[in-house]
């Protein structure tokens, strides 16, 4: 059973059962890949894997960074504006209002049902952050999710594995 702990202010809290949000990255992106397989393209799996991995690259992001540092002094008494806010707007982009309903729906799907409730308790800020990440990721996927087993062509998933750098030591 996977457990997860979380540090706030420099210490790790006691272990707790982990929710799907904690492991979804590795489940979707890692593991053996069979080239000739059918990878079902539902919930926008492709999008879940490519999705919100917007690393700091675009002009848009630079501008947001600039705004964030400009706001710093004000932020003394109003600390709610910062990167998490920015992330929201970056990941959901211009279509924010349009996709809101879909986001809520997918959020329920991803984190709401059955035993995943167990991680809604002590997860605090970073929990809600990863939650909103999962939801905003899949929001873009919702528009193109289809149903039925699509015997789709090979997926592009091999690319993500090559991006993680191996730092293997002799064992």
């Amino acid at each position: 059973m996977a457990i997860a702990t979380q540090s706030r202010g420099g210490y790790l809290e006691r272990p707790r059962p982990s929710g799907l949000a904690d492991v979804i990255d590795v489940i979707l992106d890692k593991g053996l890949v069979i080239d000739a397989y059918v990878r079902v393209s539902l919930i926008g799996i492709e999008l879940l894997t490519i999705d919100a991995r917007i690393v700091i690259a675009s002009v848009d992001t630079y501008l947001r960074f600039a705004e964030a540092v400009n706001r710093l002094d004000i932020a003394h008494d109003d600390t709610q504006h910062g990167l998490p806010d920015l992330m929201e707007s970056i990941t959901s982009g211009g279509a924010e209002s349009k996709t809101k309903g879909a986001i809520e729906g997918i959020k329920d799907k991803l984190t709401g049902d059955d035993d995943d409730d167990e991680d809604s308790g002590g997860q605090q800020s970073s929990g809600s952050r990863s939650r909103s990440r999962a939801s905003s990721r899949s929001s873009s996927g919702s528009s193109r999710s289809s149903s039925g087993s699509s015997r789709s062509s090979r997926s592009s998933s091999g690319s993500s594995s090559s991006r993680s750098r191996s730092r293997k030591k002799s064992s």
Partner: protein
Amino acid sequence: MSDGPVYVYGVAAVAKTPLSVSTRGVEAARIRAIEDDGLLALISDVRGESLATAREVRAHWRVLDEASESATVLPVRFGTVLEDEDGVRARLLEPNAERLKELLRELDGRVQLTLKGDYDEQLLLRQVVEESDAVARLRDRVRSVPAEAAYYERIRLGEMVAAQVDQRRAEDTRMALETLEPLAVAAREEDATRPDAALSLSFLVDRDRVPQFNDGVRKLATRFGDRISLRYVGPLPPYSFADIQLDPEAVAWA
């Protein structure tokens, strides 16, 4: 036994005690193992109607979790379906037998522990401004003129901040690796997914060294203090260390 498409969860070595999994798989199907020359694949029948939900992702995860309690299992990536049992043998097990066996030996008795860190963005940006004169100067300039007049300077400012954040990310990742790599068999740097991500690392750790590794993580958390909040997940089956592309067809050896 049925003859339809099957969903594949993972690969393990055949052992004296058969690997049985009681957790239901995707579409609530029963899990079974098929064998081929010392290897087994955990599979279930699949209709492919409802893989859309988080429930199916969770089923995949839980099945692998349970199987990994009693064996070393190489996880197959979520959503992998082959045409039938023969397909599992012909496309997965037979053509890759040597590679899979080698990987299983390598990962035997080892688990994956994953560590993610997020910056406290207020602390992070404040530090960037305080410690970089160039950023502080440009910020003062940008603030002294109307936003639309300083468009390119704002981009430049953001770019400088982003570069500083990248640098910190590299330093913090290095610090984490310095502390934890000696306690692990292997480490992998995962992609940073968000601007406020400080680090994202997966470690392969001998099962009996997990307590020492936990201590290492605790030490690291203390060193990072308020700057970085850590999320520590595991033990997991070695997803990130079985992250390879396999050959689909049998190679015809002469």
